[in-house]
Each structure stands twice: as C-alpha cells, then as structure tokens.
C-alpha cells in the first residue's frame, strides 16, 4: 500500500519534470546566450564581494542573461584568481581581480600576474588610511612617526595578513620617511574589521586599512583617522589630510578592483561587455551604492586598465623587495 503510493507520487513527479523541460526550448544566439559567472576571490560580506554583487545584479539587467556571483575564497586570493584566469575564453567566466594579483607572484605563491587577464575595466581604488585609537597620544602622522623612530618595535600595526596590501602600506610609509620598515611590527589579522576591533580593545596601535571601513568607529568616537595615503583627499573624508600634507611624505598606496576575464577574450565578447560595464558604472544605482558604502569610483577603459595593472605590478614588486616582504 505504502509502496504503491510512493510510485504514484514518483510517476507524477517525473511527468511534471518532463513537462517543464519540454517547455524550455534551447536557444542559440550571439554572446551572451547563457548565464555568466563573476568569480569573487574573497568572502561574502567584504568590500570586493559587495561590489561584485551589485555589478552582477546591474550587469544582468544590462545583458539580459543571468549573472551569478560566485565566491571562490582561500589562499589569500590565489584560488579565486586562478579560477578566473583558467575560466572559459568565451566570456562566460569573469571575475573581480584585486590588487593582490600584483603581489602574490612576487612572493612565489602563484605564477599568475596581470598578463593572465583581459581587463573589462577598473572600477574602484581605495587608498590606505592611518587609523589610531581615539585616546592615542598622537594627533598627527608626524607625532606618530617620531614616536616609532624613537621606540622601534614598541608600536604594533595591523589590518590584514602577513605581507598583505595594508602591511605594504605601513612598511612603505615608514621606509619613505627614512625609518626601518620593521620598526612597527606587523600583527597579522583576518581583515580590516577584526584588526579595528583589536585597535579599540587596546591590543594594537595603528591600523592601516581603508578609511571607509573605519567610518562607523570614527563616528562612534573610538578611532581617529590621521591621514590617507593618496595624492588627494577622499570625497567621503574631506577633513582627513593626505600623507604629504600631514607629514611631508610622498607615499601612496591603496587597494583596487578590476572586472576582468581570462587572457585572450575574443573581440566579439569585449565589444559587448565593455560598453555594458561602462553603463553599469554610470548608472544611478551603482553610484548611489558606492557613495553610501564610501567606496570611491575610479573608472578606466580596458587599455588604460591594462597599463594601470602592469604599472602597479611593477611598483608593488619593487616596494615588496625594498621592505623585505619579497626576496
């Protein structure tokens, strides 16, 4: 009795399934005619994930096919970047390539570099900031640098993993100021949020993540943003000086994000993607989103992006060698 009712249910189910399949007729058209994946090499909840998801949603509207955002995390970005570079060359695998692509190969974690991607466009660049606790005795970057120089090894800094982008930011700043890059020892952390928490808890002295991520804690009166490592001030933090203004140091460092596909995407594909992506960047939804999160929009076309990535790669390599992170 029980068995036969199970069969009846199965038969019905099979019939229903068949009907749905038959209703969906296969379609063949020019690019894009099936779902596109955007691979994000970083975890859900972070800035790259958030920007990747809004781009996915808006690109879907623009292209008329589903655009799925896929997190491929691990190995500090190596695994996700690998997945983008080895994706299909028909334009159905794209990804958000981040600044780490210009860093990982210098320390021998991977062979991948900017040459392994076809850029669709740069869309964001976030300068590093210098954050300290609100009750810190330092009121400017020059106070801070003087103290670090006088007491090497005493003041700890953090923001990301060992040898990560924000580690490079602080090491490069110290070196440019004529101080030993290891004078402020680096405390590895999972990311900006945990290290800011540690900063407030009193376990650290300096966090060099993007000021965007420190915004709420600054508003809560827990941290001070002493400077941004850029040539000009940030729109979201107009009162925060640049390093040049604060301490006379000519040093910029920041994270950036590029939408890209694997190397060798055909022209038919880029001819569709590049204008569609430009439209997304200019759309009100994207601009509103980026402003609300405090992410600066920086757009460059594919050719300019390729040059930007190659230059960044060279500079990062030189700095990493100079401060002793790469050999």
């Amino acid at each position, binding site marked *: 009795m*029980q068995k036969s009712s*199970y069969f009846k249910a199965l038969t019905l189910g099979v019939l229903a399934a068949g009907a749905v399949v038959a209703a969906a007729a296969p379609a063949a058209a020019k690019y894009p005619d099936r779902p596109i994946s955007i691979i994000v090499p970083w*975890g*859900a*909840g*972070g800035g790259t*994930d*958030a920007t990747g*998801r*809004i781009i*996915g*949603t808006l690109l879907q509207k623009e292209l008329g096919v589903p655009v799925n955002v*896929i*997190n*491929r*995390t*691990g*190995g*500090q970005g*190596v*695994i996700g970047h*690998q*997945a983008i570079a080895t994706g299909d060359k028909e334009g159905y695998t794209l990804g958000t390539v981040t600044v780490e692509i210009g860093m990982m190969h210098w*320390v021998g*974690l991977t062979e991948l570099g900017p040459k392994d991607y076809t850029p669709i466009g740069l869309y964001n660049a976030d300068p590093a900031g210098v954050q300290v606790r609100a009750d810190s005795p330092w009121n400017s970057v020059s106070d801070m640098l003087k103290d670090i120089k006088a007491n090497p*090894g005493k003041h*700890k800094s*953090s923001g*990301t*993993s*060992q*040898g*990560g982008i924000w580690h490079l930011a602080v090491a490069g700043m110290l070196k440019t100021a004529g101080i030993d890059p290891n004078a402020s*020892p*680096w*405390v*590895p*952390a*999972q990311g900006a*949020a*945990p290290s*800011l*928490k*540690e900063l*407030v*808890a*009193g*376990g*650290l002295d300096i966090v060099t993540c993007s000021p965007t991520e420190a*915004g*709420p*804690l600054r*508003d*809560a009166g*827990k941290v001070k943003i002493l400077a941004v490592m850029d040539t000009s001030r940030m729109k979201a933090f107009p009162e925060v000086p640049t390093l040049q203004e604060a301490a006379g140091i000519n040093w910029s460092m920041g994270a950036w994000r590029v939408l890209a596909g694997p190397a060798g995407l055909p022209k038919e594909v880029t001819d569709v993607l590049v204008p569609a992506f430009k439209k997304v960047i200019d759309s009100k*939804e994207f601009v509103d*989103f980026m402003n*609300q*999160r*405090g992410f600066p929009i920086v757009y460059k076309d594919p050719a300019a992006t390729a040059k930007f990535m190659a230059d960044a790669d060279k500079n990062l390599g030189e700095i990493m060698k100079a401060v002793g992170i790469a050999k």
Partner: protein
Amino acid sequence: MDIVVQLLSTVFSPVVGKAFFVIFQYEVLFVMVAAGAFGLFVGATPGLTATMATALLIPVTFFMDPVPAIAAIVACEAMAIFAGDIPGALIRIPGTPASAAYVDEAHAMTRKGLAETALGTNLVCSVLGGLFGTVVLVSMAPSLAEFALNFSSFEYFWLACLGLSCAAMLATDAPLKGLVSLFLGLFISTMGLGIIAGFPRFTFGVNELLGGVDFIAAMIGMFAISEILRYAAATMAAPRPPQQRIGSLFKGLGRILYKYKVNLLRSSMMGTVIGILPGAGGDIAAWVTFATSRKLSKEPEKWGTGHVEGLVDASASNNAALGGAWVPALVFGIPGDSVTAIAIGVLYMKGLTPGPTIFLHQPEQIYGVFIAFFLANLLLLPLGFAAIRASSQILRVPRHILMPVILVFCVVGAFAINNTVFGVTVMLVLGAIAYVMEENGYPIAPAILGIVLGPLLEDNFITSMIKADGHLLGFFERPISAALGVVTLIVWMIPLVLFVRSRSRPAAA
C-alpha cells in the same frame, strides 16, 4: 490597524507605534514568510549555510525598503539555524555547523522513536532562545557592544582554550581516542595558507589546499559519507524504529521545558554573550552550552542514550547567539558573525549607517528592525512546525532509495561551498577517515570541534605573542584576560585532581 498604532503610541512612544506601522504591512509580512521558507530549506540541506542564504538574498534586497530588507535576512537566518536540526535528528547529518554539537543525541532519540519530541524541543527552544537574544539586543545593545569591544586576542585565546575543554566532556568513555580525534581536527585546521605565516602549510603541493580544508565539507564527509559507507557495508538491515505519533508535536513539551527551565535560561544567556563577541557565533555557542549542560546535569548517566536535556541547551543557545551577533554590528559596524558581515553591507546600502547614532537618527527604522526580530522568532513556530511535519516523512522512504539521494545532495552541497569539486574530494577523504575512526571507537565530535576552534586558538596565540614581544605572561596582564585565564586553568585542573584522587583512594584503602 490605526487603533493598534495609536494604542502603541500612547503606551510606549510614538516611535514604537510608527515602527509597528513599518512592519505590519502585507508586503513585509509576505517577504518575511518567503525568506523564512527559503531559510528553512537552506538550513535543512547539508552544505548550505545561513551565510550563503543571506548572500543569495542580497540581490533581492536591492529592491526593498530598509526594514523589509533586514527583516528578510533576520527571518531567513533564524529559520536556517533551526532547520539544521531537522536532518541532524532524522538522519544524523547536521544541516548547519551550529547543529553538529548535538546531532548524536538528537539522532539517538529518533532511534528510540522520539523524533517528534526531539524536533519539537529543538523548535520551541530555538524560538525561546531567539526571543531571549532579541530582548537583550533591544534593551542593552549599546552597553554590551562596549563590553565586547574590550576583548582582544588575549581574551579570545582563553575563550578558545575553554572551548577546547568541551572536548573532554564529549569523549568521556574513551579519553585517549577522544584526544587523538581532537588533535586530528586541530591538525586539519592548520592546513593551507594561513594569515599568520603567509606560508602554505601541509598542502602537499595541491593548489586547492592553499585555502585549507573547508569546515562544512569536512562536516558533511565525517557525518554523511561515513554513514552511507556504514549502510553499504551493513549485512543486516537496521531495524526501522516505529515513530511515536504523539498527535501534537508540542504535547509533553511543557513538562520538558519546565524541568529544564534553568538550562533554558542559562544557555540562552551564554548563547547571547557568545554571539555578541565578534568572531564567535552560534556554532561555538552550541558546543559550549551542550558540554556545560552535560557537566552540570543531574542525570549524566542518561546522556548518549537519546536524552533531551542537551537539546534544550544547545537549541536555545544557537538561536540566542543570532540576536547577540547584531549587537556589535548595529552599534559599531563590527560583524558578530559572517551573516551580520553581509547584513552590515545591506544596512549601508539602505542608508542605515551602523554606529551609536543609529538609535538617534533613525529610531523608527531601528525599532522596526527590532520588531522584525521578534516577529521572525515567532514566525519560526508555525513554519518550523510545518517543516518538521513535512520532513519527518523522509523516515518512511525506503533506505535503499534515501541513501543514494542523500549522497547526491551531499555532493552538491560540498561543491556549492566554494563551487569546486575539490569540496567533494575533501568530503570523500574525511568521510573515509571518519568511517575507520567510528568503527574503532574514536568519537567524531572532538575532531569537528578541533577544526572549528583551531584557527581561533592559533591565530590569537601567535598574534598575542607578537603584541607581547613573546612574553607568555602577557596572557595575564589584562584584567579580563587574567580572569579568563584563571578560570580556564581551574577548569583544566578539576578533572586532573579528580583523576589523581580516584587513583589514590583504592591504594590508600
């Protein structure tokens, strides 16, 4: 509706009245029910987590007002954490990591024919724990967030040590094998390219292992694949337990809740506090409260045979932790767990910038969010009830059909974690290891605990030592850290002292 709003405005304040109006709209209620049903499905499927469910909701929330957007996330999250208990109790495969701690006990109840009592207890305790966490969130968020911010790596290291001592209580009958299992888990957690070294450890040249062994894939393998292997090798068909139809799921629950009211309160409190601490969430809350309950139980001899007591504690605590996790998220923009990490993004997008001022600038929005929390937990009752009723039918599907289908579910779940077949490989390898372990009396739970706590333990130890310039006394220099350290050492000493005394007594006699 107007009358209700007026009434609330006079009784509480105009803000609360307005907030009710924001929530009690058909669209909002519909969104919550839909998101809740989605959460139930995701939570009940091994390999799909509350984090993933939330990430998938993001594109949908782009087009919503702020309060419905947050309400959807909260409803989805609360349901997912409860739903993880369902496959755990029915087929001994936890749906989410937060259910892994008590899966054996819940399944033992199913084998006794008490599946409905087990799941009913899970459901009602989840609701009560969730409500408790919400009350704490609503009433004390700012001051508690302030407290949580005082925790640095020194304090977290001691918390992780306390968590490890749970393993001792999970493997009472085979302490040596339990220790091997725990350290195997800790070893697994060291694999990959960690944040500490920037150097790949134990990757055997496999590129995919740079990301380490994913905890969810490991969990599916160790519970589900080992179970399927056991089924394939079983020469004698396991007898199917006739399930008691108690008519109403909730019958007899009153007595259970009354009997364990102290457990319920204690574990809701512990769960909320653990949730508030950034980096520790519902998973850890469930382990800790389950082990504590066992230690303090008046009937320790019943544990392991399908005893309901631990279910009360762990179900209440993992749902209580959800409310807790929102405390630092709303007040300081620091996520309490991975779900709130995504939710913070939504808050920003909707112009609800997290920070202490969120309570001043947008009170009706934030009270709307609070009401959504209450409502989500109450909605859990009918939706969860329906889910239990529907899913308990799977016990009637013949096992020779059920097991292969579960296998395919596990494959897809392991694939979905990072969208790579490497997850399937991890699942297979650890499933085979777990099969051999269980056949030989090595408990699985301590290994899972080791994988969960390993990074917390190591990262916080190493970073603390960098900060303290390598002086171990640094762990006792901060007041909270010193207190936690002393508690940990005492907890570790007790079994040792008892052991020595029990050894010396027969000799003296």
